[in-house]
């Protein structure tokens, strides 16, 4: 195999990795602020994927147009989940919160299974087989659009947390819970907003993943794990780390699929996780100690 084969696969991996990064960004935002590990993250993404598929078959809208309504729907879902179920768990033991989300994930996967059945579904866009050629590089149009959209959403999110007053208030909650209460911030509401924003992120990522992979109800747990692998690799609570981790895992998986077999690609992601946990447990860009 020539070098251009590797290059092509690496570029495809980078583009998929951007979408992975956006998915992981949602997890990182939720953990960074609410301090709850969202163990239903991949399952929430599969809700977004099925929403995309249903909207596509009903309205034939382009998936990239559906980014906004699907992300909005997931925002509402996340807000309601945090306000209704998770807020009372703030301050409970870590494993208790964790099991709450395991339960929510289990319910989501199997409700999707009951409603949509076990068969794989896809979205066939008009540009599904288009590609751009730059020299020896052949870039899949779908992946390019998905990757570009991921960058746009991530940039919006960075801007929101950097400049918007609400974003600053949320960061204040993350930095100092008691301090935020003292200055009169409605922390519970901000937590719900944050969970909603994280859910919207993973919703947007889900729309784009629908373009790249076949969707079955059972993929949720695998993406939850993948999101955790990415976030731990990049550094929990670090937004840039989540994106970097996504790229790293995306490229690793793509190259592993080329050099070994695609079905074994997640083994390499787990191997990276173990190596990172051993040598840099706070993640590549993480600052805090994890204990």
């Amino acid at each position, binding site marked *: 195999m020539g070098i251009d084969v590797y290059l092509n696969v690496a570029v495809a991996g980078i583009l998929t990795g951007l979408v992975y990064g956006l998915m992981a960004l949602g997890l990182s935002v939720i953990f960074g602020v609410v301090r709850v590990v969202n163990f239903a993250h991949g399952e929430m993404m599969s809700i977004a994927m099925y929403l995309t598929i249903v909207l596509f078959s009903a309205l034939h809208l382009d998936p990239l147009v559906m980014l906004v309504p699907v992300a909005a729907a997931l925002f509402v879902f996340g807000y309601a989940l945090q306000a209704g179920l998770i807020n009372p768990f703030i301050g409970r033991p870590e494993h208790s919160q964790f099991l709450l989300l395991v339960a929510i994930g289990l319910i989501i*996967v199997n409700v999707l299974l009951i409603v949509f059945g076990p068969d794989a579904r896809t979205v066939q866009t008009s540009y599904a087989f288009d590609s751009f050629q730059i020299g020896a590089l052949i870039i899949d149009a779908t992946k390019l659009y998905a990757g570009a959209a991921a960058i746009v959403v991530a940039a919006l999110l960075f801007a929101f947390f950097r400049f918007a007053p609400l974003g600053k208030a949320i960061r204040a909650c993350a930095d100092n819970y008691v301090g935020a209460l003292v200055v009169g911030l409605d922390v519970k509401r901000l937590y719900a907003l944050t969970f909603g924003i994280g859910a919207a992120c993973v919703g947007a990522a889900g729309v784009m993943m629908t373009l790249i992979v076949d969707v079955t109800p059972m993929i949720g747990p695998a993406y939850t794990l993948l999101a955790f692998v990415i976030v731990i690799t990049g550094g929990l609570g670090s937004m840039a780390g989540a994106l970097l981790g996504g790229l790293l895992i995306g490229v690793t998986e793509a190259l592993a699929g080329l050099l070994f077999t695609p079905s074994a690609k997640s083994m390499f992601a787990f191997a990276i996780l173990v190596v990172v946990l051993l040598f840099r447990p706070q993640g590549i860009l993480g600052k805090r100690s994890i204990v």
Partner: protein
Amino acid sequence: MSATTPSSIAAYCTRVAASLVEDVSRPAVIVLGIFLAALVIAPFLVNDYLLTVLIVVLYFAFTGQAWNIMMGFAGQLSLGHAIYAGLGAYIAAVLFKQFAIAPWIGFFAGLPVAAGCGAIIGFLAFRFRVAGVYFAILTIAFAEFARIGFDHFDYVNASAGLFLPVAQYTHNDLWHLRGSPTMFYYVILGAAVLAFVICRALLKSRIGYFWLAIREDEHAARAVGIDSFGYKMAAVMISAVMTSFAGVFYAFFYNNLFPEQVFSISRSIEMILGPIIGGVGTLFGPILGAFVLTGLAELLNAAMSAMGVDLPGAKQVFYGVCLLLVVVALPEGVWPWLAHRLGLAGRTQ
């Protein structure tokens, strides 16, 4: 040798039995005795379907006890226990199929592998201070690693699955675990009782108190000189070995092994549901949880087939709702609540 006369053995057994129940109130001992007697005579009273349900209940009671050692006693949340069951299952099944080696020997062949696997996960986690949720994710990662690995492991038939030869057995061959459901029932009943006794003995011993100390406050435990690394390693390895026996039983009871099923995260979650619903860290929690969960799930199955509906995910949704309700409403589990109601709190745990 007077030590081996039947009467002295009987006396020794009585002493052991007495020490097991010494600080348990008399009514509780009687209730336990009746419960155990009912389980012993159950195969003569119930039909094949109910017997199979009871086997599943006892299986989860057993795996629940094993998991409870890690989470309930030592406070280490493992969400990848399927790996230990899977390793035990595959090793015993391969040895039986390829070399006609009996599963009991197969279990002892798999024992160091399961213990070693637990030791590797424990060492990586405890040496490098991977704790709490990170630890849980590390355990899942290992189980997933094993799942994908076995999916590509041709010697055990990869994803096509490993099948044990099934023939009509005219008699129960306990040594090779080939026989009727009744035989399997007594095997898993024996294992569940043994697991209970082991857990109780561990909990009442020095190591049990050290585990509880580590669970409650690891820094304080270390400060008073408890080797938290060593005792956490012990918890992982004991739990792994016990779970690997459940895997051996699973392989010989169901006669087929698929990596996608054996190592799946759903298997790990099923194992932890019983003890969580029953009560983490209690001795009766895993047993009660297994009965409640499997019993209700079977009722749901019966109700659905009576109504003529077939929903493949309904049982899992039900598990999810049960878990949700228990975590929200009874975070300590059903058993502590029930024990308090029955006035047993603080006596039988």
